């Protein structure tokens, strides 16, 4: 099994719902957004085009982040291809941050709060799971998968722009969409073979 995601750029309306759902799910500190939405504009007025591009860890089949990690903290699960960080092993050398072409990794430097009033109960509860001085990233919501749920970002996308599934199953929805709708990967020339595919916005 190779878990992956298809992101339909025609369906995404750039509402940041996935970004917020991810932050709510993982309780990450300010500055850390495992799932985020990049906005890009092209052209010159009046011929302009704007695109919202949701991104997350691409769970690369050939992950350069795992290759450079000196401690073995960055790992790829053989059973489903999920790339994750074992926080207890991480020394915070940030070599993985340098080698990830998709900006998917966040060094937990300052333990900053969202509000001047300090941490609320929700933050206290969720921040406890995050260590300082290590690198963190999306893990396709491993804890939700174990309960039979899909990742928070795709589950909460109201436009169904993020579709989660098994890339190795030719009958899965993700495989069908990639095949029939012209799915493509970001930066394929880097040889990372991402497990996140995009569907063109103008099809």
């Amino acid at each position: 099994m190779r878990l992956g995601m298809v992101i339909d750029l025609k369906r995404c309306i750039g509402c940041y719902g996935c970004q917020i759902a991810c932050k709510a799910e993982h309780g990450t500190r300010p500055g850390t957004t495992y799932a985020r939405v990049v906005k890009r504009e092209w052209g010159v007025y009046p011929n302009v085009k704007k695109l919202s591009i949701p991104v997350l860890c691409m769970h690369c089949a050939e992950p350069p982040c795992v290759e450079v990690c000196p401690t073995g903290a960055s790992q790829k699960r053989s059973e489903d291809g999920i790339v994750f960080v074992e926080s207890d092993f991480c020394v915070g050398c940030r070599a993985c941050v340098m080698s990830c072409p998709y900006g998917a990794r966040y060094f937990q430097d300052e333990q900053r709060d969202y509000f001047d009033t300090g941490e609320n109960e929700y933050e206290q509860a969720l921040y406890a799971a995050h260590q300082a001085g290590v690198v963190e990233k999306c893990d396709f919501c491993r804890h939700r998968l174990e309960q039979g749920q899909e990742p928070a970002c795709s589950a909460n996308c109201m436009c169904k722009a993020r579709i989660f599934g098994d890339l190795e199953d030719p009958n899965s929805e993700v495989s069908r969409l990639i095949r029939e709708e012209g799915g493509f990967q970001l930066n394929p020339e880097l040889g990372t073979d991402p497990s996140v595919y995009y569907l063109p916005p103008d099809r």
Partner: protein
Amino acid sequence: MGERIDWRTGETMAFPDRLDLQRQDLSQVYRPQREWIDGRGLLIVIAHFFSGIGAGAWLWSTLYDFPMGQALAIGCVIGLSGVAHMAFLGRWDRFWRMLRRPHQSWISRGIWSIGIFGLAAVASMLPAVRDSAAAPVVLGLSVLAATAILLYEGFVYAASRAIPFWRTRLLPVLYIAYGLRGGAALLLAVAAFGGSGFDVRAVEVIKLWVVVSTAVLILLYLVSSTRSGGAARESVAQLVAGRISPAFYGGTVLAGIVAPIALALSRDALGLPELVLLGAIGLASLVGDFYVKYCIVKAGVYVPLVAAEGVGSPG
């Protein structure tokens, strides 16, 4: 925005803090790397500077039998570079874990090299070892480890698949050359400021040759980078005409290349005592050696997430 006190005026001023910069970076096509240069990230450049010149100094002082230089080399690699490495890590208390993957990670190989160098170099200086039959083996091991230190630094950067400016075999070559010239520069500076028992003339000739060849290497590196795609071109642009150009021209070019050559060529006109002149050449080179590493690391930008012309065919 964060706030800080302007030390010149005493006024409170707003400044873009880490998160503001991060937000700003994420909206750019070419996102600069910051983790290995900004804030505590500068410590990794400092660490690589000291381990590079320390390993270089070890090789030269072993070649010319200069115990003071050897002691200094150990101080640079184990003391200064070691402390900077530890201070850089997010979790220094787990540093030993970096020894776990030498088969795959250049950082791991580097930590092994530094460790072996420390043990072998210190042992080789102990009278009990120096006078024993094991002396050549221990010294040989220290030389091998010092060479490995010179080698690994460039490969740490070259292994970063996301930063095209670093992803070239020329970078390790440049780091080796700069380590060797930095080591020689350190010994020249030491000799000038009271070090004795060292044949400075021998190293001076080699030093000048290395200064000239590193200049050629930098040129080669920049020219080849302009042919390695948009992100590498952007890095070169930032170096030669952008945000890093003051450090590049002032530190790398002026202090590191022009000054040592000019000082050597105007030896007679300046009429300075020999050792002072050599010390000045050494110091200028050391500044240049630091700045070349600083500039290369600072100029790293990530390959764009989305090509400048868009995704699919947005028109």
